[in-house]
């Protein structure tokens, strides 16, 4: 069951006029998985979400949801998907209960099960206390939760959340992230975001999209490995001279960071940490810090998305000029 494919997207493209918002993207989602969609603004994240939920028709490509083609058997496919757009689609004049039971009805939840579906969705999203209140009078955080409750009320196989934590306070963000992890236990979740720590915390797999194209797609564990760079951060109270450090085996480059802290780059295949520790004790260097240097997800993200930006810079400049005129 673990590797059951819930969603498969093949060669998906979507054009706005001549602009390709999504350009030949293929990916899939397994059961019990949180797939993170990362990308700068305007990269095509939201367009992709809209296409897989049927809010936009694809210009080319195939979308298969739980064995149903989204175009050929739209109703069955849509019944298996829950969607929270960037802006939660709320009817603000209704109370939380009224709104959610309407959502249960239009998502074809059986009449006998509507009540339990409603209670369950409210419990999961922490809405039980506000069920009788008007959505209009709720705070932004609670409105966002109502949006999530709406997406999971019919227990769909796939939950698509487009930037679910935007505009929430830190505590709410943590709650929503916990909720997303919980959802992944029996749904597949697609999460679009540009908040990088969120991806590290909640996702099993990450896809980075830039200018409508997938530029990176891998497990979070592989990503973490990639984040390990070949460097060490060393703090020494009685530091030897720079040349002395450079003379250590396998050290390729030394960068002095601040008083008594150094970044040592080393060859990938050798790990000099043990060696350094021994030497430090022997020579009484006063070792107080020894940590493997890490690239942040931010750096990887910038690396992946920025390279192309430089290549396309000239194009973008001319585009801007044209649109300004």
């Amino acid at each position, binding site marked *: 069951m673990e590797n059951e494919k819930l969603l498969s997207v093949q060669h998906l493209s979507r*054009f*706005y*006029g001549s602009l390709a918002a999504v350009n030949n993207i293929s990916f899939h989602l397994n059961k019990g998985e949180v797939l993170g969609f990362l990308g700068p603004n305007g990269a095509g994240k939201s367009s992709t979400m*809209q296409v897989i*939920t*049927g*809010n*936009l*028709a694809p*210009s080319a490509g195939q979308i298969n949801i739980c064995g149903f083609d989204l175009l050929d058997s*739209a*109703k*069955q496919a*849509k*019944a298996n*998907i*829950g*969607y929270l*757009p*960037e*802006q939660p*689609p*709320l*009817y*603000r*004049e*209704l109370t939380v209960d*009224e709104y959610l039971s*309407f*959502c249960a*009805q*239009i*998502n*074809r939840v059986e009449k006998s099960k509507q009540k339990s579906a409603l209670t369950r969705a409210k419990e999961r999203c922490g809405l039980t206390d506000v069920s009788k209140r008007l959505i209009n009078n709720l705070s932004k955080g609670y409105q966002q939760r109502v949006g999530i409750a*709406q997406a999971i009320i019919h227990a769909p196989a796939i939950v698509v959340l487009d930037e679910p934590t935007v505009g929430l306070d830190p505590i709410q963000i943590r709650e929503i992230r916990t909720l997303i992890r919980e959802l992944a236990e029996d749904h597949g979740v697609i999460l679009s975001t540009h908040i990088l720590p969120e991806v590290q915390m909640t996702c099993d797999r990450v896809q980075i999209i830039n200018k409508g194209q997938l530029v990176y797609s891998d497990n979070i564990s592989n990503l973490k490995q990639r984040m390990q760079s070949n460097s060490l951060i060393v703090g020494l109270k009685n530091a030897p001279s720079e040349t002395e450090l450079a003379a250590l085996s396998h050290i390729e480059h030394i960068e002095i960071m601040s008083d008594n802290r150094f970044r040592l780059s080393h060859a990938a295949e050798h790990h000099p940490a043990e060696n350094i520790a021994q030497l430090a004790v022997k020579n009484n260097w006063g070792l107080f810090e020894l940590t493997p240097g890490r690239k942040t997800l931010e750096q990887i993200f910038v690396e992946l998305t920025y390279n192309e930006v430089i290549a396309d810079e000239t194009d973008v400049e001319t585009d801007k000029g044209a649109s300004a005129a």
Partner: protein
Amino acid sequence: MMIFTLAWRELRSLFLSPLAWAILAIVQIILAYLFLSQLQEFLLIQHKLVTIENAPGITELVVVPLYGSAAFIMMLVTPLLTMRLISEERRNKSLALLISAPISMTEIIIGKYLGILSFAAIMIAMITLMPLSLYFAGTLDGGLLFTIVLGISLLIAAFISLGLYMSSLTAQPTIAAMSTFGMLLMLWIIDWAGGKANETASGFLEYLSMLRHFEAFTAGIFNSSDFIYYLLFISLFLILSIRRLDGDRLQR
């Protein structure tokens, strides 16, 4: 089934805003005033009518003008009822809720249409209470009353279908209201232009006029061609709305 869920939600939301109540109250007050003044007029000339052979009765002299005024007032009011149907959902981005649910565009449009239609039915029922109250004092021409209620129902149903379509074209409710009003007024007066100059042209314009088709009903004539005119009108704008909503998803 799904259609009724959507229609019920639409009707409920309408009654949760003060607009629906205000419209019901104001239309009722104005029509009651017109009805009473018409009735008073009738009572003044009643004794003269007795002497005339084949004189028009209370239905022709009181009830028909009442529905005539009601039709005109509804032309002003319908745009306010229909303007928010789709445009506001588009502006609030809540359309995604309906579109990502397992329901078709046809169900969405017809559901919304029936929602407003049931509101209109409530209005017509309330207006009809006035002529029905005359049964306490005398008798009415029941057949004429029936055709005229049927006529105004069809007329308002046609108004609403046009309003729904206009609302599906824009994200601004006020623009939807203004253009609905413009279109309705145009279709109301379109036969004025014909004149005597060109027989075929004026015949065609007369056929398009919503008022002409309604007038037959107020004379107690049930003409199947008038009936078909309204059915065609309604289906045309419902189909256009479905296509317009579907067009949002497609390539542009």
